[in-house]
């Protein structure tokens, strides 16, 4: 559906040049929810804007279906944009228009006949669950409701692709979940390809099928969400995942460092359990089998679209060889073990 080939974007002014997007190649399948995660300034915002021609690449090609976005005339680009919906962090609704009029806007631009327009708008408002608020103005809506209007508006011309630019970043966690559920529902019902950029790993975890991690304009890691969560390779990816695992990530880091200092002989481990693997009483087995003590620091469980991931920070105290053997045993029991050393990767 979407193919990026060696895409570069360079911004330059008198003082210096910034490489916002650096040789990115991606391929996104039809019906997929594809997440792009990165800190602000990583280039993800520029990247998503190249998918509908709001930014043009300095070099490289962007294909939507068979169309090369960079090779279109202005008129063709406008028609193509009608097939690519977009929603925004700050919703970007027209405050001078009611909910219904906002949804009608893209239909007016596409020159849909009036009766059809009204019918379509009604359907969309129903789809996003805003029945009864048709005549309200954006200023009378909550953030979540505004984003629902944004979604209805983005879907008005039956797009093939929906671009989400930090669509949940200004919403509270509960509302974020509701909006993500709505997006997932739309993805399943309409087989709509969704590309979302975010800096929140939990958004990726909850609805994305695949994820690309961006850093300094480059895609540094890419793959199935579950795989990336299980086996993150890059430091930045691990950091994103840790941020999601431990919401108070700063705290955990500090506690871990303190524990390392207090017990220089012990070993700190992060144990990761996948799906049903975590059902046998692993910890008690280990304690009975080896001459060690286990100190539990923190633990939690997360769910992706279809997999449960457990994570547990523990400290092993005791004889060095016993600890080594215990770690081996953990591995045999299909538990993933990461030893946390002094130089915490963040």
């Amino acid at each position, binding site marked *: 559906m979407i193919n990026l080939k060696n895409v570069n974007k360079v911004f330059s002014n008198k003082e210096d040049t910034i490489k916002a997007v650096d040789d990115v190649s991606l391929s996104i399948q039809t019906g997929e929810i594809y997440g792009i995660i990165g800190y602000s300034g990583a280039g993800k915002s520029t990247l998503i804007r190249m998918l*509908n021609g709001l930014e043009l690449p300095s070099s490289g090609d962007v294909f939507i279906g068979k169309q090369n976005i960079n090779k279109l005339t202005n008129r063709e*680009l*406008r028609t193509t*944009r*009608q097939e690519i919906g*977009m929603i925004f962090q700050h919703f*970007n609704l027209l405050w001078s228009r009611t909910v219904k009029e906002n949804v009608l*806007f893209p239909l007016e631009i596409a020159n849909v006949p009036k009766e059809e327009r009204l019918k379509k708008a009604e359907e969309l408002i129903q789809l996003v669950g805003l029945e009864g608020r048709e005549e309200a103005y954006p*200023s009378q809506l909550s953030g979540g409701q505004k984003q629902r209007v944004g979604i209805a508006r983005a879907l008005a*011309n039956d797009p093939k692709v929906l671009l989400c630019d930090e669509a949940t970043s200004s919403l509270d966690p509960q509302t974020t979940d509701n909006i993500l559920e709505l997006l997932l529902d739309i993805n399943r019902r309409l087989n709509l390809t969704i590309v979302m950029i975010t800096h929140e790993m939990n958004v990726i975890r909850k609805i994305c099928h695949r994820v690309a991690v961006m850093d300094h304009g480059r895609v540094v890691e890419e793959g199935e969400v579950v795989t990336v969560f299980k086996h993150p390779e890059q430091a930045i990816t691990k950091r994103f995942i840790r941020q999601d695992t431990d919401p108070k990530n700063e705290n955990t880091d500090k506690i871990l460092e303190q524990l390392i200092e207090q017990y220089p002989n012990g070993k700190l481990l992060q144990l990761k359990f996948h799906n049903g693997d975590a059902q046998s009483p692993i910890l008690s087995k280990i304690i009975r089998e080896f001459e060690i003590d286990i100190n539990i620091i923190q633990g939690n469980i997360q769910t992706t679209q279809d997999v449960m991931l457990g994570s547990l920070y523990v400290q092993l105290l005791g004889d060095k060889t016993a600890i080594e053997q215990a770690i081996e045993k953990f591995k045999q029991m299909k538990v993933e073990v990461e030893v946390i050393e002094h130089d915490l990767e963040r």
Partner: protein
Amino acid sequence: MIWNVNVGQNIFEQYTEFSEVNWLRVWAATKETVFMSFASVVAVFFLGLVIGLLLFETQEQKSLFSKIINRLVAFFVNVFRSIPFIILIVLLLPFTKEIVGRITGPVAGIPALIIAAAPFFGRLVETGFREIDRGVLEAAESMGASKLEIIFKVLLPESLPSIVAGITTTAISLVGYTAMAGVIGAGGLGNLAYLEGFQRSQPTVTLVATVFILIIVFIIQITGDILVKNVDKRS
């Protein structure tokens, strides 16, 4: 000129000699003032929108053409905004004679009024456009809107409260300008106050002219406020 206000006459009495007031002339002058103000407001409204749009649209464009247009429009706006109105109207007399055919009467006041007020309102329009969230413009663009659609469906409706408030302020200044224009022969309440009130020493006539101008201004302000309140859906 001799300042020949009657000495010894009570000040209050000077302002209440209503026998001096020719109400038909006051009414005629009021109609002239309303006509001049209204005609110039209509023209200023459209001209100002064009100026505001030109300034806004050429502002961040990188083409040479846009840069030249922007500089040129900005230059004229700044020049005509800086000339004191009373000087501008005198300066424009030959121009007025050329296009209106005469330099006295209400119609003759209009060219100067438009040229004085349109740049001012144009700036207000530009400011109104700039207050629109860039994200909203980007959203419209992402939906495939053309430049014209963005102007008519986004820029104008979204800045309507600023535009209405701006034209109200401009209209009130214009009423003030018509009085100045009246002094040098354009007719209206300013003319009445000057000729009959000042030169014939009838302060009552001046007072009556003042009250009528105030009424016009209040009506404009109140109408403007109600309109702004009705079009502003931001809160």
